């Protein structure tokens, strides 16, 4: 029979009801597609008192195209997004990232908001309860020590979402609703560098919408490496967006996933105004090396992941630079 601890299942009719239910108690969690939360529940990694199912809230299902922006509800499924023909035309990098998330039977349920808010991951964490118990658990949940950084004072579990880096490279903002009303912030602001508290959401808050600016002159792309190409989280992934003016690299944004507890933005402003060259690529690699913090949180060692991020970034930016010519 069911392996899950007991909890209450709440299906609110409105987002206001959802917020009230969430704000009522600190051990109440949002449930959307469940493809991240339910495996974690099964492994005893969370034990909420109640789940608030937001997957059918109509206000979180909207897609709206305006001249200068695209607004997406947080509960839209990845399958629906991938089937939206205009999305592929205007944001091919986003669709590529979406289609690289899990498998089709996950994507039929998985939501955009759930993807952004998915838990961080670690080889010492995404394990069964008996496995973790025999290892004295760990700092992220129930334990005292981090097995990755035994001398560290925080959890270094890594963020492995595929979609956030692309949205960040595209300059996305999000709306968060909660007991205090609604606030809008750059997607970057959702994340904080702490593997056991990687989201900046306050109690009672949820992500309601994602807002993407529509600028035609940008070229963007996404690359990931994984153990199994058919289906897997990224060991590391790189999203880039650039604007080229003649031989000048006018703007370049780069965001890396799978290396830190957040999707990490690499500051490359020093390259803007120059041109794209081997030297620029080397400088970018240096900046990436400084920004990422790859530790032993995945089955593949840190050295490989650090090097593959730099290689992917060089290849991707070179491609985009060519495309933009």
């Amino acid at each position, binding site marked *: 029979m*069911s392996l899950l*601890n007991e909890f209450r*299942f709440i299906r609110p009719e409105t987002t206001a009801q959802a917020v009230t239910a969430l704000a009522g108690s600190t051990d109440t969690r949002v449930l959307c597609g469940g493809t991240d939360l339910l*495996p974690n529940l099964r*492994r005893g990694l969370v034990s909420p008192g109640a789940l608030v199912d937001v997957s059918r809230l109509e206000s979180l299902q909207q897609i709206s195209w305006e001249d200068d922006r695209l607004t997406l509800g947080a509960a839209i499924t990845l399958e629906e997004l991938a089937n939206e023909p205009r999305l592929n035309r205007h944001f091919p990098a986003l669709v590529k990232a979406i289609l690289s998330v*899990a498998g*089709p039977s996950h994507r039929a349920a998985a939501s955009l908001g759930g993807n952004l808010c998915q838990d961080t991951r670690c080889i010492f964490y995404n394990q069964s309860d008996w496995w973790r118990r025999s290892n004295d658990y760990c700092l992220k949940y129930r334990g005292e020590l981090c097995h990755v950084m035994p001398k560290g004072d925080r959890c270094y579990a890594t963020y492995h979402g595929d979609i956030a880096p692309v949205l960040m490279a595209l300059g996305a903002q999000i709306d968060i609703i909660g007991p205090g009303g609604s606030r809008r912030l750059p997607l970057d602001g959702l994340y904080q560098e702490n593997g056991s508290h990687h989201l900046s959401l306050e109690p009672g808050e949820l992500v309601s919408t994602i807002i993407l600016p529509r600028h035609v002159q940008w070229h963007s792309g996404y690359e990931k490496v994984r153990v199994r190409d058919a289906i897997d989280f990224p060991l590391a992934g790189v999203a880039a967006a650039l604007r080229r003016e003649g031989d000048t690299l006018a703007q370049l944004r780069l965001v890396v996933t799978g290396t830190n507890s957040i999707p990490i933005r690499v500051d490359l402003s020093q390259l803007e105004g120059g041109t794209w060259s081997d030297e620029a690529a080397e400088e970018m690699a240096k900046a990436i090396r400084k920004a990422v913090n790859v530790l032993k949180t995945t089955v593949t060692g840190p050295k490989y992941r650090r090097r593959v991020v730099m290689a992917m970034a060089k290849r991707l930016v070179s491609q985009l630079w060519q495309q933009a010519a």
Partner: protein
Amino acid sequence: MKKQLISLRVNGRDREDAVADNMLLVDYLRDQLGLTGTKQGCDGGECGACTVLVDGRPRLACCTLVQSVDGCSVETVESLSHNGRLSALQQAFHEKLGTQCGFCTPGMLMASEALLRQNPDPDVDAIKGALAGNLCRCTGYVKIIESVQSAATNREIAP
């Protein structure tokens, strides 16, 4: 634990059932309804053995609360055969050796069924994409892909 009443359709029959809030769809199907065709092959989300259709789309019954399919139509592998006769897809898995130990087969069938309803003539890449979340320890996948291809051809001949 308190139970709540849900109404849903399972394999074409409307039902009402009292279920616990924390019950997974896979446990509801297997333990409450006795539909043991749907398999549980991993501790959550990794293998696809539990794939069923919810409103026609493939979903993992082990990562789905039964409460969240209230009002939906659920189809399991038991719905494929009619009056004891295998469907064209099942027949193809049988003839092309797409099934060996058989544990992954219900999930493979339901994921393929979802594909063929949407795309009756899939190429190999489309089949691989549709089955990306379904693991098989026996066949090496080649025979599974051939089975789906063969079923697609047969569907076209005999509707």
